[in-house]
């Protein structure tokens, strides 16, 4: 009885009693959801353009953050550090296309997926050899102090990350919709063979897509690193982007954003209000169960294309 009460009634009573607190939790969750969205965005970009489910995206976030923090530790100015990291991510994109994707062209999706897991291991080991395994603090002068907006406590840093993420998405959207390269990317995403037939160079497109994913990873890595410190748990948190993908759909950029926000807010609310009754740390699985429940209702996600086959 008591457990049932703690699960079914008292959380809602708490929310009702203290709506400001609920709002705070939701806003905090939404803002951390922005980070999930960013990682999910990286997955979506690559999946759309090459049909590869890139498991290494989480490690790319970590790798970018490690490289960036490592450069800063060597007293490189911030703008140069960003440039260096970008160069590294471009190099990575070329390497992946050359060494992994090109020989594996025309293989089944699961094989490509496994190959990206291989990339994950490689990057993890490589990053640690070059930059060491210590936790690094990343401080690029972003404001961190909390502030109060009409009775609700908000962290300034979270706002900054939301703005950064928002502008990144806008830039990407313009890039996809308005430029020639963006059109080529969408063409490849639609139909590989048709895109090849009209003369779109597939290999270049892949490099561009992986570079874009690398840039997104860098932004996510910097934001995340500033928030939590650059450490290997980033990778595990990046796994949370997978349920985000399910919620939003594997092929939808807005889906990744909305899904990330839903997962971020949902899991914070669940943790704060239901966590104590269930034994705590339900953040670990809440997103996955939410995604699982969601799949049964709408298998293609919120905005995903309806190409999923009926079974």
């Amino acid at each position: 009885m008591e457990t049932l009460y703690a699960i079914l009634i008292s959380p809602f009573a708490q929310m009702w009693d203290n709506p400001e607190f609920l709002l705070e939790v939701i806003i905090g969750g939404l803002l951390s959801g922005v980070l999930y969205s960013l990682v999910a965005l990286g997955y979506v970009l690559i999946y759309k353009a090459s049909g590869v489910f890139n498991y290494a995206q989480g490690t790319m976030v970590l790798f970018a953050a490690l490289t960036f923090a490592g450069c800063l530790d060597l007293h490189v100015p911030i703008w140069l550090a960003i440039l260096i990291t970008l160069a590294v991510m471009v190099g990575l994109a070329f390497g992946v296309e050359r060494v992994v994707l090109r020989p594996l062209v025309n293989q089944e999706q699961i094989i490509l997926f496994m190959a990206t897991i291989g990339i994950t291991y490689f990057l993890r080991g490589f990053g640690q050899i070059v930059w060491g395994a210590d936790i690094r603090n990343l401080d690029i002068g972003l404001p961190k102090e909390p502030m109060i907006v009409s009775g609700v406590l908000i962290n300034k840093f979270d706002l900054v990350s939301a703005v950064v993420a928002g502008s990144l998405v806008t830039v990407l959207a313009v890039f996809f919709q308005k430029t020639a390269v963006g059109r080529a990317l969408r063409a490849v995403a639609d139909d590989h063979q048709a895109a090849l037939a009209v003369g779109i160079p597939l290999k270049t497109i892949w490099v561009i897509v992986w570079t874009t994913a690398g840039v997104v990873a860098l932004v996510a890595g910097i934001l995340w690193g500033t928030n939590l410190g650059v450490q290997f748990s980033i990778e595990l948190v990046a796994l949370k982007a997978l349920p985000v993908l399910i919620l939003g759909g594997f092929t939808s950029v807005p889906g990744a954003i909305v899904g990330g926000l839903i997962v971020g807010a949902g899991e914070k609310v669940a943790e704060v209000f239901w966590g104590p009754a269930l034994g705590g740390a339900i953040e670990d699985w809440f997103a996955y169960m939410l995604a699982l429940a969601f799949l049964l209702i709408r298998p293609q996600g919120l905005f995903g294309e309806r190409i999923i086959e009926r079974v």
Partner: protein
Amino acid sequence: MLYREAGQFKTSYVADQAIFPILQDRIFIVLILVFAVVGIPALAISAGGEAYWLGTIMLPLLIYALAAIGLNILTGYAGQVSLGTGGFMAVGAFAAYKLATAFPWLNIVAVFLLAGLIAAAVGIMFGFPSLRIKGFYLAVATLASQFFLIWLFNRIPWFTNYAPSGVISAPPRALLSDIFVTGAAARPLFKYYFVLVIVTLLALAAKNLVRGRVGRAWMAIRDMDIAAEIIGIRPLRTKLLAFAISSFYCGIAGALWAHVYTSSVEALAFDIDTSFNILFMIIIGGLGSILGSFLGAAFITLLPLFLENVPPKLGLVIPVNLITNIQQIIFGALIVFFLIAEPRGLARLWQIGKEKLRLWPFPH
């Protein structure tokens, strides 16, 4: 010259349906079994490394092979990608723990079988989404089982019999009166034989399953579900059966892992890395091959040992923290290399070798 089926006539249906229709294959498999039963223990004991060779190398290898067979049934034969293997193994481990402590008089074999059945039931529950989705959506959905189950065993004290630390040692149980096979005090030799027998029997069962009616139904679903449905295979039953049997194997593997190999029941031993490791095994070994499960398990368990032991022999001294990183790099590179060189895995290489052998000494 040595390996060919010429002259071996099948005169009955039984002979036609044998697992190993060729005499040379039968001889080979018997030799391998003899080596596993007599050769490996003899070598290990004579080298003075019973605890090391049998206890820390052969045990995890065999148990991983069992889990890989389980995942191969689901992913390789039925075509349902799963990343929840670790979760199902944890179910087996904790079910066996609860059963063994609640019914101390129950024979350990019965405990493990029941634990497998419980894991199968849980597997069916998490298999339901497979009726509506497939591919990567399903893979991510199975992650839910991974994270939820591990959380469950970590957080609900009932599963650990209210142990304060969360790490509990496996109860020692004997197979016969005094031949202990579980717990930390049991002799590695007995543990090895116990696991060997279970794995061999279950592998044999799996081999027969996948070449029978059930296995063909799985493969039909894997290759084209709509066509399979049209020729009268029920997707619901077939898929759930695949989830059930796969989880049964994984559950028993998990129970063996916790009770026989590590002798401590803890949920963290079955984290997401375990799931990925086992997925690697079946990809590198070969999807849709029982032999491949063994080859993959051997490859993944022996590779780190190899990387650890070979550089010092060559006179290279590498600091310890560097070794793990280099291992990861080599591991990742090898996975990519293998996928490029032979996407269908070690089992395919084995098959190619046999075909070459059949023609030898002629090239064509």
